[in-house]
């Protein structure tokens, strides 16, 4: 089962394979969109697309791996599952090194393929969630004053209020006020949570 905006993009030169895959996905309520070549897919691709890509590694014209390379160039982060034939394993391994999410070997069992598609979609959602979370944290962080930023950095390093006060030449009381404001603006309730956000912002 997919979320509303998620689509599996099928790129395969073989019409029968394409259509049967789309039919199989439909039987488990996954919506899909098919493309007969790498060119056709790259021409239609939009950055806002969500879901994952099912990409035949061996196609006439632009190969599956070339499609992958060009998608990376376009900052596309949709997970790619390669469909490979018997002799294509070395190619598939190389594709994995270049960031492909997974590959399935033809002929595959339907459950195997569906599991991998679900795994890719889940991975995609997690990445999306992380991206979203980071965006929110960054937004909160941007509301801090320069002084509060300094205090947050020191707190995240585990320094005690007394040490921070000395380092920043402030009264301990003032540090305490700044610290409370940081916790409030970053919407955290514990030091541990604040440290986690600091790490996230560092990434």
């Amino acid at each position, binding site marked *: 089962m997919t979320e509303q905006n998620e689509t599996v993009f099928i790129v395969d030169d*073989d019409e*029968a*394979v394409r*259509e*049967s*895959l789309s*039919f*199989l996905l*439909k*039987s*488990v309520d996954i919506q899909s969109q098919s493309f007969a070549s790498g060119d056709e897919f790259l021409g239609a691709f939009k950055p806002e697309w969500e879901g994952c890509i099912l990409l035949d590694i*061996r196609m*006439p*014209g*632009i*190969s599956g791996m070339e499609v992958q390379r060009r998608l990376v160039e376009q900052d596309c982060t949709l997970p790619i599952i390669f469909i490979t*034939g*018997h*002799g294509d394993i070395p190619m598939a391994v190389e594709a994995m090194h270049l960031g492909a999410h997974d590959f399935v070997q*033809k*002929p*595959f*069992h*339907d*459950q195997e393929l569906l599991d991998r598609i679900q795994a890719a979609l889940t991975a995609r959602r997690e990445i999306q969630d992380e991206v979203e979370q980071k965006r929110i944290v960054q937004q909160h962080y941007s509301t801090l004053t320069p002084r509060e930023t300094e205090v947050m950095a020191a707190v995240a390093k585990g320094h005690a209020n007394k040490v921070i006060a000395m380092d920043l030449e402030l009264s301990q009381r003032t540090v305490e006020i700044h610290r409370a404001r940081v916790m409030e603006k970053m919407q955290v309730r514990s030091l541990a949570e604040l440290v986690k956000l600091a790490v996230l912002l560092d990434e």
Partner: protein
Amino acid sequence: MPHSARFPTLPACQAYGICLVATNPEQNSVPKFDVTAQMAVMNALIEAIVIMDDRGQIKRCNQAAIDMFGYTQDEIIGQDISILMPAPDSTNHSTYVDQYLRSGKAKIIGIGRELNARRKDGSIFPIHLAIGEVAYYDSIRFIGMMRDLTDNKKDEERKLRLHTDMITASRLTTMGEMAAAMAHEINQPLAAIANYASASERMLARGSDNIEDIKVALAHIKTQSHRAGDIIRRLRSFVKPDSVDLGPTKMNTIIDEIKPLAEVDAKANNISISFDVSTNLPEIIADQLQIQQVLLNLLRNGIDAMHENAPEDRHLELHCYIATPDTVRIDVIDQGHGISEEAGKKLFHPFFTTKATGMGMGLAISHTIVKSHSGALSFSNNLSGGATFSVMLPTKMANR
């Protein structure tokens, strides 16, 4: 052979001459020659000798004739010569002799020819027969000298067998090289069938409101299994056992049948392929399978030659057209590395190859096949890069 061992240096023709002279014992003008020695000479010959009179009755024969035909001296002397021949020669022979005696026109005397002879046990075997004649008092005697050709024939048959075996082996090698591409091509419909079947199962498990969808899936399954079957059928027709099957064949059929195989192979190697074949090409006299083997081999070579090419330079073409009123021409044009002068000299030699994993048999065998069809196989480098291999085959009309 004990007889020849005793007279190792005596050539057959001399012995033959001696026999002729010696058969007339009552003429005083001829040199004396001991009768026992005459018999020894005759018996020493490897060739069988049978002497008959003008009515076809056997008068004498040597040991080799006894060995060859399986009769004893007693059984054979006085018999009609026709007992040594299979039908229809056995019944027609007296007519031949009569004709010759009346007209003086011989069908065989002085020429020698290959024909079949018959042993006592009825078995028939090939011989070479030479016939001489000699005056004998008022009449004529014929001397027949025969050599058993059974071993020669066996040799020829063995050579022919080896030749066809080699062609078959090469065809199987070609198929082996194409196996990966074929497996991929058969996998496609199988994958589609599996997908449709699994999807239908899931739909059925969820209830019966998807009957229309499932009907569509079943129709697809049928189409796709036929597709897989077609590929296998084509492969099978190409690996069927080796029998030379020469006959009038449509050039268009030859090409139509290999087209799908070549397309699969090209696609698997990421090469585009196009066929430019004139419609209504004349018939040729050919072994269809062998000509297809040649063309597939040339196409495979073209594919192999472009392995290093960039995607936009991977194109293979086959043109087939009437070159002269008597000749059909097929050009296989690639965009590969071309043929170096050095390689060109040895291209049709067996075991010469420029491929890393090649056996070097493909072109040598193709060359042999085309030659055995009275055709020609040639090659040239293209001005724009790559090579063109051309097969020229005489049309059926030209063969007449």
